[in-house]
């Protein structure tokens, strides 16, 4: 298909889908209305299990099975990226060059912000059942806090500070812990992912049964997978790609050698 032909198809498709979407929007429940049947049921179910944060209740209690699937998707993505970014034939790794310049103000900001980000991440994971947050959000904050060290320093130093094996283990342990809690629900509560732990008092740290446990497991898995994912991409920066073919090698040869 030529480019102009593709544009014709695009215009027809966009016009058709756009019309259909606007037409569908006209028959949607009005924006901002008070008819939310799912909300009413989810809120009642969250109250029954003493979970203050209804979103966490949906994610880690009422529909925890979906979250398990989501965590598996995350694991699958990490495995997929690892497979896709494996070294190809003729690829070499060069030593990281320590020539970059980091501003002192950047360093200072990183020194101040990294511990805050780590504490905030732990806080968001731990309080997922009672305040906004949970395993996914907290895990991403934790991984971000770690990578602040990369922004404020050298890659080689960051590479030594970050035990990658530990993070891939953290990821697996997170997924296994989720499955173990789910199976414990089967043993103690009679159903996969049953909320079998004492529910406690609403809005207390140790409330809502298995929700904080599952949230912690997800936080561990998300931190691990984010760190491993970013590590794969950062590592690509250090790879010297193999020469393509005769023509491209001769055309770009000098420039390529220069970069190494």
């Amino acid at each position: 298909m030529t480019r102009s032909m593709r544009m014709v198809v695009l215009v027809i498709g966009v016009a058709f889908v756009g019309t259909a979407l606007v037409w569908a929007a006209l028959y949607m429940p009005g924006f901002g209305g008070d008819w939310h049947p799912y909300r009413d049921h989810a809120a009642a179910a969250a109250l029954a299990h003493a979970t203050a944060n209804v979103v966490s209740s949906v994610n880690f209690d009422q529909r925890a099975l979906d979250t398990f699937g989501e965590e598996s998707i995350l694991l699958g993505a990490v495995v997929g990226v690892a497979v896709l970014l494996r070294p190809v034939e003729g690829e070499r790794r060069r030593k990281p060059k320590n020539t970059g310049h980091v501003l002192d103000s950047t360093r200072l900001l990183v020194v101040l912000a990294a511990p805050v980000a780590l504490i905030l991440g732990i806080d968001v994971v731990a309080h997922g059942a009672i305040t906004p947050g949970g395993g996914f959000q907290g895990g991403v904050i934790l991984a971000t806090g770690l990578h602040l060290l990369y922004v404020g320093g050298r890659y080689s130093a960051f590479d030594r500070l970050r035990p990658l094996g530990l993070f891939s283990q953290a990821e697996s342990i997170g997924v296994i812990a989720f499955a173990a809690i789910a199976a414990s629900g089967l043993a103690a509560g009679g159903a996969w992912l049953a909320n079998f732990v004492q529910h406690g008092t609403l809005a207390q740290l140790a409330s809502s049964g298995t929700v904080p446990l599952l949230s912690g497991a997800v936080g561990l898995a998300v931190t691990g997978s984010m760190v491993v994912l970013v590590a794969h991409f950062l590592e690509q920066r250090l790879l010297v790609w193999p020469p393509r073919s005769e023509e491209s090698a001769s055309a770009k040869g000098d420039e390529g050698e220069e970069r190494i």
Partner: protein
Amino acid sequence: MTVYPYVVAAVILLLGVIGIARSRNLVHAVVCLAVAQSATYVLLISIGYQHGGVAPIFSSSSTAPKHMVDPVMQALTLTDIVVSATVTSLLLALTIQIAKQHDTVDPDELRSLRG
């Protein structure tokens, strides 16, 4: 204007699709896909919104959940964001591999290379 947010979601989706179709760089196409997917965040949050609604978090059991925005939609949006992040990372990894194998990230050139 009770349909306005839904139309915004539709426009974001179509802008993303147009970007993918017109793309001359696979990284650009991946980002456009992320834009298209972010339309679903707008749509889900719009569906769950209620005028004067509060965050779906109880402070004590006496609080009646009458004016609460829909937590199910927020949970779905969270799932959506996670899936979007994984898809983006996988596609970017694919793009790196394509760049290594074919020395180009232009979708049009890729086709001519493969014949």
